[in-house]
């Protein structure tokens, strides 16, 4: 930039105004819907259905947040979601790390076909297995259970986890593993003592993405459960949509929405760099 004559400060500032306006508009666009959910959750039913619309919560009604737990077993739904997402994440990581180690580090016939099959499974339309999976979990006695959901969620979390972890395993220098081998470590010991500490960031990334996917999943949860005892939060929020859209308790729906979204947002804010790295690695390396 040094070879150009510098415009004076004021002109530079003026030139940047449209740009900064664009940035402001962008932030508004990205964040306003969530802001609106919070504002709506803090209104009473009367305030919700009032014109002109007020853009601030006039008298914040925190009671709405209590009411979603008392008018229905929302705590139970949260627990179910937590169990399903947590179980799916842990199992995906456990099986995924072995598979990723095998694909990333071992030479054997069929390695690449397996790797590409895994890729293909992530692109798979889950609707095309819905019927077959329904029959399968019915006959296994897993219909309408939390283990049943965990089991079916492996369809999309496991290949994705293996994929991310494989790319991390490949980046570890071979020498470390060779040293462990010379010291007489078994492959399992090498995996857990040498590789695992080094792919820990990859585990966090893959685990977070698997957790978010499982936490947000709707189609399987809607199809493979009927009871409140196994209902997850997305289904509960979808089922708020009752008889007609005029009677919907929008403040409760928004309160429930904020409650399920906040844990995710906190996770995302803490781990944002890892998540971005995982998302882009997953997509760019494809």
């Amino acid at each position, binding site marked *: 930039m040094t070879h150009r004559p510098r415009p004076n400060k004021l002109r530079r500032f003026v030139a940047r105004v449209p740009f900064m306006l664009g940035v402001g508009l962008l932030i508004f666009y990205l964040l306003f819907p969530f802001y609106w959910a919070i504002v709506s959750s803090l209104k009473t039913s009367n305030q919700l259905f009032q014109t002109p619309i007020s853009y601030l919560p006039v008298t914040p009604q925190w009671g709405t947040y209590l009411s979603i737990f008392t008018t229905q077993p929302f705590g139970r739904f949260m627990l179910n979601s937590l169990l399903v997402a947590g179980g799916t994440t842990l199992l995906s990581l456990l099986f995924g790390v072995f598979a990723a180690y095998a694909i990333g580090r071992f*030479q054997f016939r069929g390695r690449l076909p397996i790797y590409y099959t895994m890729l293909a499974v992530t692109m798979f339309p889950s609707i095309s297995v819905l019927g*077959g*999976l329904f*029959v*399968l979990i019915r006959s296994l006695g897993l219909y309408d259970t939390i283990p049943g959901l965990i089991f079916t969620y492996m369809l999309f979390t496991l290949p994705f986890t293996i994929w991310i972890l494989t790319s991390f395993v490949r980046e570890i220098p071979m020498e470390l593993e060779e040293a462990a081998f010379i010291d007489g470590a078994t*492959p399992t010991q090498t995996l857990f003592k040498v590789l695992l500490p080094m792919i820990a960031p990859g585990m966090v990334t893959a685990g977070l993405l698997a957790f978010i996917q499982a936490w947000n999943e709707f*189609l399987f949860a809607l199809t493979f459960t009927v009871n409140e005892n196994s209902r997850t939060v997305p289904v509960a929020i979808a089922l708020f949509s009752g008889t007609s859209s005029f009677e919907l308790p929008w403040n409760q729906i928004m309160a429930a929405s904020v409650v399920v979204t906040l844990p995710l947002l906190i996770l995302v804010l803490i781990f944002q760099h890892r998540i971005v790295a995982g998302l882009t690695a997953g997509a760019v390396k494809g």
Partner: protein
Amino acid sequence: MGGIRFQPSSDLTGSRAQREVAVQQSTDIKPVPRVRRFSLAAWRARTAWLFLAPSLLILVLVAAYPLFRTFQLSLFDVSILKFPLQPTWVGFDNYVALFTDPRWWRSVWNTVNFTFFSVFFETVLGLIIALIVHSEFRGRGLVRTAMLVPWAIPGVVSSQMWRWMFNDVYGVINDLLMKLRIITAPVAWLAEPAFVMPAIIAIDVWKTTPFMALILLAGLQGIPKELYEAARVDGASPVQQFWRITWPLLRPSLLVALIFRTLDALRVFDMIYIVAGSQVETISMSIYARQQLISFGSLGYGSAVATGIFLILAMYITAYLVALKVEVK
């Protein structure tokens, strides 16, 4: 479970001692047992299969077998309500019916329509956002963080949030648009057939553009800065720099992002289901398949629909791969 061909022989699934025995056996059989590298390679291959076994078993159970089962069931007339199933063989009757089913073709058209417009707007908007965030300015970190918010919000939740915002009388969108004098009277976004699909596309664009922008941003950051410096020295304008440097080097990430988004959009379920249910104006392929399979309980015909979706996606992926190959050549 005859489908699991990949598993190592069962004597390898045991403890380490067993495995060593197996290794020894395998070296005994080999014609040149003295060559240590050879047996090591074989042993490592076995270990690899052993490590892969649990994942492969799970994927056979949740992916391969149900997919096969869906194909199989599509050749039968069978109800989902009676267990154990009582299938009646009908051959390709379900496919004949599918081919002449106007509701199915309507759902295909709706899905293609949704996919085309949402992916188009997501790409254009995502590129603009990526270019903005790629430049240096104060508050850049804030924008990057804000971009993750729509992505992290569950699809069901964002659908409900926007459904409320689109409310015709009390919705904030009508209010804002009227304050900005873009419209003069409230619009019934979700009741008017002409507006439902655009409204749903708007929700998807909001939710997914950040993902697109993040991938494109990663692509932008991979372009060496020296190229721009060299171009500036040669007197290239910013517009020339974009078309001569940014665009060609960004194309690979753009293509990858496009195929992933398109595949995702072709599978759309949550958003349309929450906002519009299974009404014919907006029903997507996935919603139609689920309606046939679960709500109407016709496992046979529903499986034919699901197979139809599978074939359409497979055709799309093949076309994409062929196009990519042509491009590489």
